[in-house]
């Protein structure tokens, strides 16, 4: 049939044309790349977008100084999904121009670790908080490549427990996890810190639309505090339904929920007073000037891990500025780095990849649809 030949010819054209387009021109100057592996699309896309913008802002400032070695961003979209994290990580490791990578979510980071370890690429994560990544006893131990500039969930769990129960008489807590690897980790850590205050729990898989049964359990447990350890898209749905079913108690959540979209999706009235914890400093607080630059460059406000992504990128850029251009050199440099961040604090890593010294954990509260910093957690 003529149809088949047309189809075959058309597809051949498409493949040929696309291959022509993908043959890259040879470049004369050295261009290095810093990769960001995170949810650039998908339900968690806002977090990835906030992160990659932090990277791009740092790169813009660096490249504007007309350095000898230009550095570009490599966008690795894993959609927050473990399986994708593995393939995206393999692709990043296979690109010889990539000399350092920022990984956003814990699950995909773990999936991609084998590729990064084999290639010896340094990871400076702005947001992966799972404890196992820096725990030598854990199968997901990330050494020698993994580092993070945020405190891990061992610190966040107790902080979340404290933040949630402050000012509540006879705290009775109900906890909900979304069964993702991040959520389960934070859940365990928070549960341990709560002790007897924890009255009940439930697990509602990511993507759940109807939380009615969970809410009934909250009521049956007579809880006056609900702690959610998942991400913002589902957290917003859950909180909205909680409030619409006349739950008047405290709602608290971890850094997965800290996102500018959260109060919008949950509803202004419903999200009022929600308490959040996160190991981050908002860019508005850390540097008003950079925030202005950011807004001019991207036409939007900075987001959750923007400051951290910015700092992580700058650490790698510092290594490049000091003449380190190979993966091994940059990895060694980061291991020994003493970097002064925009808040004026000197940052360095311990032998497991965590920040040395006591960590940073901030608490936040939602007021009138805006997330505001509320002091240390």
């Amino acid at each position, binding site marked *: 049939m003529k149809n088949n030949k047309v189809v075959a010819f058309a597809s051949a054209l498409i493949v040929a044309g696309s291959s022509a387009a993908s043959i890259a021109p040879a470049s004369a100057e050295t261009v290095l790349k810093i990769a960001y592996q995170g949810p650039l699309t998908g339900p968690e896309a806002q977090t990835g977008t906030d992160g990659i913008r932090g990277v791009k802002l740092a790169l813009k400032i660096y490249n504007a100084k007309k350095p000898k070695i230009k550095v570009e961003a490599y966008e690795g979209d894993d959609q927050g999904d473990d399986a994708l994290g593995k393939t995206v990580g393999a692709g990043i490791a296979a690109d010889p121009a990539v000399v350092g990578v920022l990984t956003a979510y814990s699950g995909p980071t773990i999936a991609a670790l084998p590729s990064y370890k084999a290639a010896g690429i340094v990871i400076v994560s702005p947001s992966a908080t799972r404890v196992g990544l820096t725990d030598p006893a854990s199968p997901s131990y990330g050494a020698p490549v993994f580092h993070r500039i945020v405190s891990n969930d061992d610190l966040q769990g107790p902080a979340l427990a404290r933040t949630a129960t402050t000012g509540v008489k006879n705290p009775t807590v109900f906890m909900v996890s979304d069964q993702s690897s991040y959520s389960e980790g934070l859940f365990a850590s928070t549960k341990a810190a709560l002790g007897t205050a924890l009255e009940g729990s439930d697990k509602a898989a990511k993507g759940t639309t109807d939380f009615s*049964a969970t809410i009934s359990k909250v009521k049956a447990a007579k809880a006056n505090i609900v702690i959610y350890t998942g991400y913002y898209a589902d957290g917003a749905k859950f909180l909205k339904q909680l409030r619409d079913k006349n739950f008047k108690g405290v709602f608290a959540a971890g850094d997965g929920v800290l996102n500018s*979209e959260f109060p919008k*999706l949950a509803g202004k009235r419903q999200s009022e007073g929600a308490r959040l914890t996160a190991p981050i400093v908002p860019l508005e607080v850390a540097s008003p000037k950079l925030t202005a630059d950011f807004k001019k460059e991207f036409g939007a406000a900075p987001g959750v891990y923007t400051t951290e992504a910015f700092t992580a990128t700058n650490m790698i850029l510092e290594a490049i500025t000091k003449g380190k251009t190979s993966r091994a050199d940059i990895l060694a440099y980061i291991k020994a780095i003493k970097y002064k961040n925009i808040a004026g604090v000197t940052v360095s890593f311990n032998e497991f990849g965590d920040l040395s010294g006591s960590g940073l954990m901030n608490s936040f509260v939602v007021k009138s649809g805006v997330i505001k910093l509320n002091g240390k957690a």
Partner: protein
Amino acid sequence: MDFSVLISEFPTLTVDGIALGFIYVLIALGYTMVYGVLRLINFANSEVFMLGTFASILVATQIFSYTLESEPLTGFKLVYTMLAMLLGAMIISGVVSVLVEIVAYRRLRAVTSNRLTSLISAIGVSIFLAEGVRILTSSAPMGAPRILDKITLTTVFGADIRIDILLVIIFAIILLVCLDLFVNKSRLGKGIRAVSMDYDTAKLMGININKVISTTFLIGGLGTGAAAFFYVTVYEVTVFRIGFELGIAAFTAAVLGGIGNIRGAFAGGLALGLIEMYSSAVFGTQWKSITAFVILVLVLLFRPNGIFGESLQQARV
């Protein structure tokens, strides 16, 4: 296993289960009616639902210019806005449903009797529509403005009856009654039943098969669109993936009740809604899908035509 929650919150769980169940019922209609006439699992119905939800929200935000921060409406404004959202969802879902039939299935009916081919075509449509919306929304969820304030009207046996829940239940019942009347009393409805019973004979008897099939897809689409409106009213959010997540459940409901007939969809949808609520309370929400599937398997093994199934086809060897 914890029965205490089930017992103490039974009324609330039941009301929630019924409300969710009616949404399942309406979506299940899209599957069950198409299966009745074509013996085809209409995979694309999940995206028909998804598009209906977006249509509903867009009516509120684009045509009426409400935003997530808008105050809920009252009085006459409330009524006509909700009607507009309902119509928007039903029209879009109905139209898409009919288009899907014409684009993806019609030609195959004439060319091959291999039902798997139509199934794969259906899957292709489903993927295409979901991905299309994903790209247009950059995978972000879309929130709906609160048009109807969620006031609690009354309390029955300790269960709060909210106005939106009540609306869903009443509307759904009205819709189902109309539909049942249509299928049983109208000429076109008789045509649909004839084709469900015996495709070839119906054709021989002079029934306009294409018209019947298009009508079936249209009705299924309208029902699914109504479900989309109710979904948006209650949950106030949608995302490109929503079709897939609810579609599997609705399809399970259709089979549970006895696929191919409307009363089956009704029974299956309500049953599934209740099963999900109760099992979540007893075992934990993470087990709710498994409970549904296990019950489905058991029902099919011991009562293969479903709860209400007429013998549409032999289910057992």
